[in-house]
């Protein structure tokens, strides 16, 4: 059972969070009945705010749950998240300022807007919107799993813990839905800054205090085997392809592009992107908690009371609870809790934009601006509750595996979105076929790699060793997109000659 001090700090900070969310409406006031005002905060966020907003996409439950949990259970392989962060901003620096500039000129709100305009294909644009919406769903579910892990640790040993947990999540989501409905991206941005301050305080204190209290990192590393110290040779290709595939995929997610397009200028966008690898340092610290926890016997003892499959996701909150004073745990745990809520809001908003602009409006072009913004607001609320319902009905470990599948799917829109920015020779038909083949082969490989059972691996055994499936499927996809375009262009030239 936790002390009263933890609960009091946790609840009071949560109230501050809700206040900030609603206050967002009055901050840098704009007409929130316009789509670009509501979902892109009027496209006027500066370097610092874009830094925090896109940083919020990095410090999600993925960093608190999936990565430390993977390191705790499997070892060094999951540290791939660190070089991935380093590489993803190189990708962003090359692609995103160009997408920003085109979007400002032509009024795009989503990547799908760009693709429709660039290739003149409704089919391709709708396919890209649908892929984005589907890939985002398990990502939101993962955020909720992260929030659940905080509540599970806080409520351990109390009566009716399951019911209390579900009610708490429901309250948190109703509050979140209410303030995103009224404040849009402004509310999400303000709360993102608040959340990141709490998280930074947490990681800095933990990385100093915990190694000191257990007598140095060395003592934690003594408790684990060699596959936690360095990477086994057989996993080197897996590590490199996980880095590559994840780095290519991050800026294809609708919520990341949404953050990018809210920047005030391409220059400010570049500057904040250049600084974002610093965020990864916090992620590295969280990842190391998956090993540090082995040096804290009280935390290990507490974790052993849970089934093996769910221990990993509880690592970070339990390590904090067993090494920090109560009031500080309250701050840190709330930081992780809203660390799931803020990204969930941004993700649902990005899904809603895709659904309204790129699917509903395509089918019914007469949609008025007023209806467009109303449908966007309502569907962003619905998407949040779909994810919540998903978490209530399926086990937590499924959310993590589906997130793996989401990564494989979203990587397949890369040829149209990234190469579409620079390569003139690409044609729509090969892009459509490439996307379908990429998605089909990706799903098949991920099923085959897991023997058509529950998903736990995203690596496919090949001649070169196990490789990240997103990368293999993307290679097929790119070959078709470029090869097919080359053939079409050649035959077009020949026809002209005749």
């Amino acid at each position: 059972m936790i002390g009263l001090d933890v609960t009091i700090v946790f609840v009071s900070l949560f109230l501050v969070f809700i206040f900030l969310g609603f206050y967002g409406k009055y901050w840098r006031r704009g007409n929130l009945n316009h789509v670009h005002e509501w979902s892109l905060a009027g496209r006027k966020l500066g370097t610092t705010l874009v830094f925090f907003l896109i940083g919020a996409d990095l410090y999600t439950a993925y960093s608190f749950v999936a990565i430390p949990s993977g390191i705790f259970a499997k070892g060094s392989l999951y540290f791939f998240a660190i070089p991935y962060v380093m590489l993803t901003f190189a990708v962003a620096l090359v692609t995103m300022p160009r997408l920003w500039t085109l979007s400002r000129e032509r009024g795009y709100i989503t990547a799908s807007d760009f693709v429709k305009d660039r290739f003149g294909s409704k089919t391709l644009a709708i396919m890209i919107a649908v892929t984005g919406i589907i890939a985002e769903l398990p990502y939101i579910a993962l955020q909720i799993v992260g929030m659940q892990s905080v509540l599970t640790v806080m409520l351990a040993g109390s009566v009716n813990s399951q019911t209390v947990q579900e009610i708490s999540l429901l309250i948190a989501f109703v509050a979140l839905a209410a303030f995103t409905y009224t404040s849009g991206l402004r509310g999400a941005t303000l709360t993102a800054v608040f959340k990141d301050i709490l998280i930074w305080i947490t990681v800095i204190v933990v990385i100093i205090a915990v190694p000191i209290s257990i007598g140095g990192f060395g003592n934690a590393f003594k408790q684990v085997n060699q596959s936690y110290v360095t990477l086994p040779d057989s996993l080197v290709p897996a590590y490199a392809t996980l880095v590559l595939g994840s780095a290519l995929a991050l800026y294809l997610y609708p919520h990341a592009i949404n953050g990018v397009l809210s920047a005030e200028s391409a220059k400010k966008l570049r500057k904040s992107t250049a600084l974002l690898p610093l965020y990864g340092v916090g992620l590295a610290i969280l990842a190391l908690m998956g090993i540090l926890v082995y040096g804290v016997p009280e935390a290990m003892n507490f974790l052993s009371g849970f089934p093996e499959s769910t221990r990993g996701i509880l690592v970070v909150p339990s390590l904090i609870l067993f090494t920090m004073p109560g009031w500080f745990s309250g701050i840190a745990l709330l930081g992780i809790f809203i660390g799931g809520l803020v990204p969930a809001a941004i993700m649902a908003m990005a899904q809603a934009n895709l659904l309204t602009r790129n699917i509903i409006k395509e089918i019914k072009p007469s949609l008025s601006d007023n209806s467009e913004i109303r449908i966007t607001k309502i569907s962003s609320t619905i998407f949040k509750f779909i994810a919540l319902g998903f978490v209530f009905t399926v086990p937590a470990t499924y959310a993590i595996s589906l997130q793996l599948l989401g990564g494989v799917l979203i990587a397949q829109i890369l040829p149209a979105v990234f190469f579409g920015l620079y390569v003139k020779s690409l044609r729509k038909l090969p892009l459509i076929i490439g996307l379908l083949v990429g998605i089909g082969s990706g799903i098949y490989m991920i099923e085959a790699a897991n023997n058509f059972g529950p998903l736990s691996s995203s690596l496919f055994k090949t001649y070169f060793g196990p490789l990240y499936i997103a990368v293999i499927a993307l290679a097929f996809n790119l070959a078709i997109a470029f090869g097919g375009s080359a053939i079409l262009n050649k035959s077009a030239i020949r026809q002209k000659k005749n």
Partner: protein
Amino acid sequence: MRADYVILALLILIPSFVSLGVPIYNREYPELIGLPFFYWFQTLWLVASAGFYLAFTHIKGKEQ
């Protein structure tokens, strides 16, 4: 002008090469405050890459 492009490309490619070149950092020693090389090297490179990217941004900004 051409020299600028080479520098810009290098500022992006060097950190990319380091992040994908796993054998560069897949070793245990030398340790730093008890952390194996594998962990501290990659973490420090995050800071270094921000330096590379800032230089990229700076040169790009002058260009326009």
